[in-house]
């Protein structure tokens, strides 16, 4: 059947674009995570200028559409001559780095709020008990606050990661050949309207299903105290 063959050919072409989608996704999650950790630290540092900077960062990157952020970075920054003549241009010239940068900054805005919420959810009593045992500073953070906060933040963080796989579809707007852009090209070239989009949708769906299962497993692993004991 011709249409089954078309679906298969489309699937293969989209699969070839999957590495780029995953690369953009992975790098922006990693960089976004680091930026988010820094922003969270500033936000809860108690030092007014740092906290204000963190608030402004979150306000801007959580408050505006990702597409606008992407366009400002990809099309907006090069319109400033000093950007084009600086060392930054080596990176900003490439749509790939522009995409990673804007996705990372955007997810950092959301993630740092998730981190902050997770920190705030650490029970005061646990921290006090740790202090009573003589823990303080980094030891207290590493042994008590961080593990509890990570567990608390995991469900919200997994949602953010899953929504990021879908956000990567926006990079098709800056000439990158990700899964969606290849689907749009097939759609435009063959004028077969729905099939390429449905195949692309299915690929994102499977990707997110795998991620969702992974986080279910991870939650299970990090919360042994919530499992029913066998005896």
């Amino acid at each position, binding site marked *: 059947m011709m249409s089954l063959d078309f679906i298969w050919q489309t699937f293969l072409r989209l699969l070839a674009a999957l590495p780029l989608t995953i690369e953009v996704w992975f790098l922006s999650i990693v960089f976004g995570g680091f930026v988010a950790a820094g922003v969270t630290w500033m936000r809860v540092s108690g030092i007014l200028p740092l906290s204000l900077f963190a608030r402004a960062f979150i306000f801007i990157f959580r408050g505006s559409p990702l597409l606008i952020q992407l366009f400002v970075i990809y*099309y907006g920054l*090069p*319109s400033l001559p000093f950007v*084009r003549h600086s060392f930054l241009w080596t990176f900003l*010239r490439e*749509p790939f780095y522009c995409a990673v940068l804007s996705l990372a900054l955007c997810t950092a805005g959301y993630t740092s709020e998730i981190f902050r919420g997770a920190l705030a959810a650490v029970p005061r009593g646990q921290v006090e008990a740790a202090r009573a045992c003589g823990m303080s500073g980094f030891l207290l953070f590493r042994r008590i606050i961080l593990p509890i906060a990570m567990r608390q933040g995991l469900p919200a963080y997994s949602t953010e990661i899953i929504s990021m796989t879908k956000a990567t579809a926006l990079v098709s*707007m800056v*000439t990158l050949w990700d899964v969606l852009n290849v689907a*749009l*090209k097939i*759609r*435009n*070239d063959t*004028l077969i*309207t729905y099939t390429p989009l449905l195949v692309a949708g299915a690929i994102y769906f499977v990707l997110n299903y795998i991620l969702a299962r992974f986080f279910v497993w991870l939650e299970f692993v990090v919360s042994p105290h919530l499992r029913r004991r066998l005896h």
Partner: protein
Amino acid sequence: MRLPLAIGMSLLAAASFATVAHAKDWKTVVIGMEGAYEPYNMTDPSGKIVGFEPDLALDLCARIKVECKIIAQDWDGMIPGLNAGKFDVIMDGMSITDERKKQIDFSNPYANSPAAFLAAKDSPLAKLASNGKVFDMTKSPAETAKALEELRAALKGKTIGVQVSTTHANFADKHLKDVATIKEYKTTDERDLDLKSGRLDVELDDYPTLAAILEKPDSKDYAFVGPEFKGGDFGVGSGMGIRKSDADLTAKFNEALKAAFADGSVKKYSLKWFKIDTTP
């Protein structure tokens, strides 16, 4: 409450039946264009779509005595939009190609202009022997091949910008992909931004479209470079895209086009917007 609603619904149903029954009378024809393919069609500061195609469309519609409404539609999704019934005619510098003919019908061509390259004035491409010469890919394949060879050598390692799913994109894919990087854009505006920021070395597009870019104030460092091509991969020119089921409309517009060619109207609009005669 029930009764008025029921009456309203049946009136609505009757009304929609009425429109379906009378659709073939063609009182109004909706024409889809991008509003961003200067000078074929563009959006003026007040939001109105103006250009060569709006002028021609209104002329043709007057000839066949229908009221025409022009709406903006992204290039990306133009043919699916037509087949889905969002509008009745495509006029967007759309080249008549065999691939597109499988999906829609075309009127006779109303414009045919060569494909050309645009780059910085100091680009090595500006010094080619074939500079500014027009090659007909159908009529003179030998000369075309020679010009292509020279062009390919000059484009080695360059980045070329085209609009997605155009005859230009197909040409670049077919002849230049192995020597240069091809970048595809959803709109020509986005592509022009990347040329000016330096992400692109060369643009490949329709001659009048590139000429319109050169007229903008920040384009003084750019010029036409290399050879120009027509025929062959670029088809016989641009026509009005019309649904296969509306053969009557295609016939009407063909009649109107014939008359508009005969009295020089098409040429008049071409000279007004393109500054050159693009009648096929």
